[in-house]
């Protein structure tokens, strides 16, 4: 993959890239399908029930059935809705979530693009989907979705900053924004990974990441019990599927990013275990992060809007700045 990027851009190269892109799209869609299935199973087990078991063996085809259902469902657009924006919103939400995956290095060799501003690219693109969510909330001409849209705008913006600030510590340690060098900077033993020196950054990052995804402790935009379904209340059929797809692709993206930034990417936890291929370690750490998100969803109640804002601005942000200061002091003293 690496040498392909260096070659000149010809028709033939373009087609190969496109091919790999489509393959990766199907990998991600496969992940999304079984992430939904896995989430429903895990939350089911945590609630002393079985989760989907009826469609296909052990319920494996449940999400496939869901997607088919959404495809076949009538795709209604409310009469007074703003048609153009209504149609644009899901696109604006889904495209960045898929584009963001380009910069994440999966193993030594496997990875799409190695931008030297990988992290900045990630942060920038992921905030575009906020616009999509607000657009969806406004365009569907429904009071509940408007409230949901406004909430999600407030939440995503106020948690974007602690998310990025918490990672500055890691960048200072490695001196570069490129994800590949960040992973490179982490050694084969787990104490050489970034999450131990950057423990504060790691905690803030996890909290801000959960809030970025609008997941449970912070799932205010689509709070089932208050706003019925938040911003995607008027969406049906495949447009609604786009919103779900975007949400789970972001779960993929955030978990991958956490693995890369803090849990040492494809490095094995103990040097002696490095005969196992890096991809397996990556997938293991990645699945732990995904499981942790589902685990939170089964347990946590929802936070209130004003508490969310005050927690974001008055707690996470100062902590992130403190973390940067400490890292700077650490680098200065041990002139790493």
């Amino acid at each position, binding site marked *: 993959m690496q040498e392909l990027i260096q070659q000149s851009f010809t028709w033939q190269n373009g087609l190969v890239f496109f091919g790999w892109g489509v393959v990766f799209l199907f990998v991600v869609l496969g992940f999304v399908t079984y992430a939904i299935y896995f989430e429903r199973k*895990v939350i089911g*087990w*945590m*609630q*002393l029930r*079985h989760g989907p078991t009826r469609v296909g063996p052990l319920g494996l085809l449940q999400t496939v059935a869901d997607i088919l259902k959404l495809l076949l469902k009538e795709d209604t657009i409310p009469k007074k809705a703003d048609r153009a924006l209504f149609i644009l919103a899901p696109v604006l939400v889904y495209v960045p979530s898929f584009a963001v995956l380009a910069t994440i290095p999966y193993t030594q060799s496997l990875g799409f693009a190695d931008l030297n501003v990988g992290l900045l690219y990630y942060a920038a693109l992921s905030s575009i989907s906020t616009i999509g969510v607000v657009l969806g909330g406004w365009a569907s001409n429904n009071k509940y979705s408007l409230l949901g849209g406004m909430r999600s705008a407030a939440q995503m913006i106020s948690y974007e900053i602690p998310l990025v600030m918490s990672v500055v510590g890691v960048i200072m340690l490695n001196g570069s924004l490129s994800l590949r060098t960040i992973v490179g900077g982490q050694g084969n033993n787990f104490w050489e990974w970034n999450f131990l020196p950057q423990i504060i950054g790691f905690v803030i990052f996890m909290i801000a990441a959960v809030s970025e995804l609008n997941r449970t402790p912070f799932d205010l935009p689509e709070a089932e019990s208050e706003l019925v379904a938040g911003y995607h209340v008027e969406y049906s059929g495949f447009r609604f599927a786009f919103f779900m797809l975007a949400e789970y692709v972001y779960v993929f993206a955030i978990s991958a990013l956490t693995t890369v930034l803090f849990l040492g990417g494809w490095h094995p936890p103990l040097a002696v275990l490095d005969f196992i291929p890096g991809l397996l370690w990556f997938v293991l750490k990645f699945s732990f992060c995904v499981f942790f998100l589902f*685990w939170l969803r089964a*347990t*946590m109640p929802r936070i209130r809007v004003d508490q969310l804002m005050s927690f974001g601005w008055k707690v996470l942000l100062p902590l992130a700045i403190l973390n940067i200061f400490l890292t700077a002091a650490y680098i200065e003293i041990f002139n790493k």
Partner: protein
Amino acid sequence: MKGLLKGLGVTFKAMTSKKITYAYPDVPLQMPDRFRGIQHFDPDKCIVCNACARVCPTECITLTGKPNPDPDKKGKVIDTYDINFEICILCDLCTEVCPTEAIVMTNNFELATYSRDDLYKDRDWLNGNNSLIRQDNISMLPKGGAKKDV
């Protein structure tokens, strides 16, 4: 912070513990004996006293009798007996007042139908509904009085 972690611990422990849901449509649900399901009607016992039709709060029982065919016996024999399950609330008052335990509850409760007409059950259907009949009946029949067994 400690409360959050304890909460996570509880859900994690629940994840590995035994599940408590039962597969109802596949495995039929076993109801206790006294369960108030759809009534079972035994025409021979009925003496057409109209007690059940009168006591029914929603008046969903309609019955007609006819004079006894063979001349020596007096009294009436039941002719038609309909329960309208659209409005029957299965409150079990009819089986209480029936002096001859002609109408008794069973444990079947599947009443879903595709058309409302099927909810008008007539005498033969009620007589046919004779599976899982309730044994422990409270009715005016002296034998049927409240049994005391603890």
